[in-house]
């Protein structure tokens, strides 16, 4: 955990890949006890996903898996078996929260849909994250990062000043799967509070498509008022509003307010062309962007990312450095806030991971716990807590239950 905010809260996770495991990670980060259930022998699919330490794949070598599953206990359990179901039922009885991201059909087949789960534990909060939610015509459709991006309306708008001849562009990595997991955690915490006050449980039906939709703010407003359809090829009435190359990388430059542009002209050392009427305001600069761009590049290419970023920010200009991963890891602001954390783990040794973006004034920050090895806490949970013997454990393993 990072912060002991949710002392005594018990979470059961039957998740795979990103959305549900990330939701449960956030609860674990905040001090809840999370028990993650993985399929025996195979484990979470994210164990097979890049990046791997030194590019060597292996069940315990994925950086993605280790990040998404820190601050959890890990057990293996086969929910297709009768004994597996029984054990799961016992775990469920003592849980406050159950997080999962399986197809609704599969959950029903396993007897783990909300109706059945509620019978075992009426006060449970069941957070189900699926590509399209538990209801509606697409509920059994397959999703994933790329498909959700497009059915949620963001894909069509990506990327800004896009080229109509090129395919719309996916965001890097699994941004929107993570965002869905984040939203699920937010919702779960709200209903956890309700559970504490009223003792009531609920199912939270989180849709990855809807999580993407929350990002299309500007275009939905424009459509509602004017009926106009935003496109990725639209030219904004605003320039510069671009990523521009410079001597050793890229910067993001945008000047929504004119005083920002005037101060940036100072940063550039007042080139003559900046006084031209062609560049008098953002709208005109947008019209003459083809003429302005090479003039700006002439200057940016002679300066470093850091110089331009720092000098602009010192003057209150919201210009950004396009940081690469190494620079993010070295960013002095993130370092000052101790955002990154080192975690020592069997098999991969000590590695640096992103931490959490929040700080609490009344709760001391603690060191996070490494993601579990496959089945690492079987003995702890099955023997110490549930009373199975070591011999039982062996038999359960032989029977393919754990």
């Amino acid at each position, binding site marked *: 955990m990072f912060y002991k905010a949710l002392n005594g809260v018990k979470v059961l996770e039957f998740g795979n890949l990103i959305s549900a495991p990330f939701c449960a990670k956030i609860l674990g980060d905040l001090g809840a006890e999370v028990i993650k259930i993985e399929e025996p022998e195979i484990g979470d699919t994210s164990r097979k996903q890049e990046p791997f330490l030194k590019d060597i794949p292996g069940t315990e070598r994925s950086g993605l898996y280790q990040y998404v599953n820190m601050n959890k206990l890990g057990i293996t359990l086969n929910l297709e078996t009768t004994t597996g179901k029984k054990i799961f039922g016992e775990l469920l009885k003592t849980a406050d929260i159950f997080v999962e991201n399986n197809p609704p059909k599969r959950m029903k087949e396993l007897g783990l849909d909300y109706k059945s789960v509620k019978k075992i534990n009426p006060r449970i909060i069941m957070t189900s994250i699926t590509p399209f939610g538990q209801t509606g015509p697409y509920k059994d459709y397959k999703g994933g990062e790329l498909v959700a991006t497009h059915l949620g309306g963001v894909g069509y708008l*990506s990327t800004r000043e896009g080229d109509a001849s090129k395919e719309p562009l996916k965001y890097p990595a699994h941004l929107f799967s993570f*965002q869905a997991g984040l939203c699920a955690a937010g919702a779960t915490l709200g209903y956890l509070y309700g559970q504490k006050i009223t003792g009531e449980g609920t199912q939270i039906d989180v849709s990855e498509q809807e999580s993407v939709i929350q990002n299309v703010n500007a275009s939905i407003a424009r459509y509602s008022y004017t009926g106009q359809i935003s496109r990725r090829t639209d030219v904004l009435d605003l320039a510069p509003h671009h990523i521009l190359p410079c001597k050793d990388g890229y910067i993001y430059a945008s000047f929504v307010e004119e005083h920002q542009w005037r101060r940036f002209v100072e940063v550039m050392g007042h080139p003559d062309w900046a006084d031209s009427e062609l560049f008098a305001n953002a709208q005109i600069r947008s019209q003459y962007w083809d003429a302005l761009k090479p003039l700006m590049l002439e200057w940016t290419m002679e300066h470093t990312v850091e110089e331009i970023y720092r000098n602009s920010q010192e003057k209150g200009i919201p210009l950004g450095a*396009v940081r690469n991963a190494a620079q993010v890891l070295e960013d002095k602001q993130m370092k000052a806030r101790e955002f990154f954390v080192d975690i020592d783990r069997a098999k991969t040794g000590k590695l640096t991971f992103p931490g959490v973006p929040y700080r609490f004034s009344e709760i001391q920050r603690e060191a996070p716990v490494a993601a579990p090895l496959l089945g690492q806490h079987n003995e702890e949970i099955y023997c110490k807590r549930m009373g199975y013997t070591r011999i039982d454990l062996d038999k359960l393993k032989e029977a393919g239950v754990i």
Partner: protein
Amino acid sequence: MDTAPLKGLRVVALTWVWAGPWMGAVLADMGAEVIKVETRQRLDAQRVVKLTKDSVEDINMGQFNFTNRGVKSCTLNLKQPEGKELFKKLVKVSDAVITNLSPRVLPGWGLDYPALKEIKPDLIMVTLPAFGSEGPDKDYVSYASTIEAVGGLNISFGYPNEPPVLSGTYPADPIGSIYGLVGFLAALNYRTETGKGQLVDVAQSEGVTSLIPEVIMEEVMNGRTRPRMGNRDEIMAPHACYLCKGEDKWVAIAVGNDVEWQAMCKVMGNPDWCKDEKFADQYNRWQNQDELNKLVGSWTKDFTNTEVMTMLQKAGVAAGSSLDIGELVRDPHVVKRGAIIQQNHPVGGKINVYRAPWKSALTAKNPPAPCLGQHNDYVFKTLLGMSDSEVARLSEEKVIY
């Protein structure tokens, strides 16, 4: 019993633009009473957005109406001493303050957490600065795109062998919102156990970085920045967008294994090229995906994206139309789920607003976003017990303004 979980909780919102307001709207969805304190002195930038060159500016007709659903609005000039006092009185009868104003603003007004804590000892306060409220760059200014760039999103965002690109929709804002929500609710749960309130400080840039761990771990584990790879996945192929019938109409297809690939071949009518050993297994398909994508595209172009999506999904293959905003609003699934609903805003008219991305039986039913100062009477007279004449005087003196 249908009770939204945060019913009875009062939150004061000093929010503007997107990240702060969206957090308020989501809290209102969960049943909290969210009172936005704003002023004509400096309007929320989203109230005054001009949508087109020819459109009339109206302070009640901006993007504001999409991110402030269900909240109440009162006006108060916090630069005035009496404005500050009224604000403090409001805080005293509330549970929390949320804000995404620049970190310099509230200390300048004498309304930062230490000051407000004196009035309301168990107050929870959430701040959403771009880079955090402490540290050497705490005063750096930003738009969502600044945060995305500095957080490490853009460097790996683009077509292969081309420069990085800007995002089209500014996800840093809603990400910051929901991290604020998470921090707030964690503090709220903590308060029910301990009775203690606290300050929760969320750095939006760290929020972005925390959602792209692959990019960071690639550097940590292998010493390199993840390359820009367009729509490619690391394992799957096909994994791209394909042109369909119509103008700028695309369908996204993601094939995860051989079973799905065989199903897709069948849907395409098993053309000869499907049998080519270049596409025989996932490894080969991935290696030869440029050629594969051209061939798949030669099939999709004769159908609408909806037709391709429906055919493939029926066969168990992940596919989805690239919906434009009009199609999204009308999408049968979106409509059935009520993910986007039509609200009748007193000034904005019929508008399509999106709700929080989850459903629960225990959800509040809320009105549209408020007009500026719409709830002044409720806040100042009902909640704070002020007389008509006092409110009139303070309005006259531009305190309630």
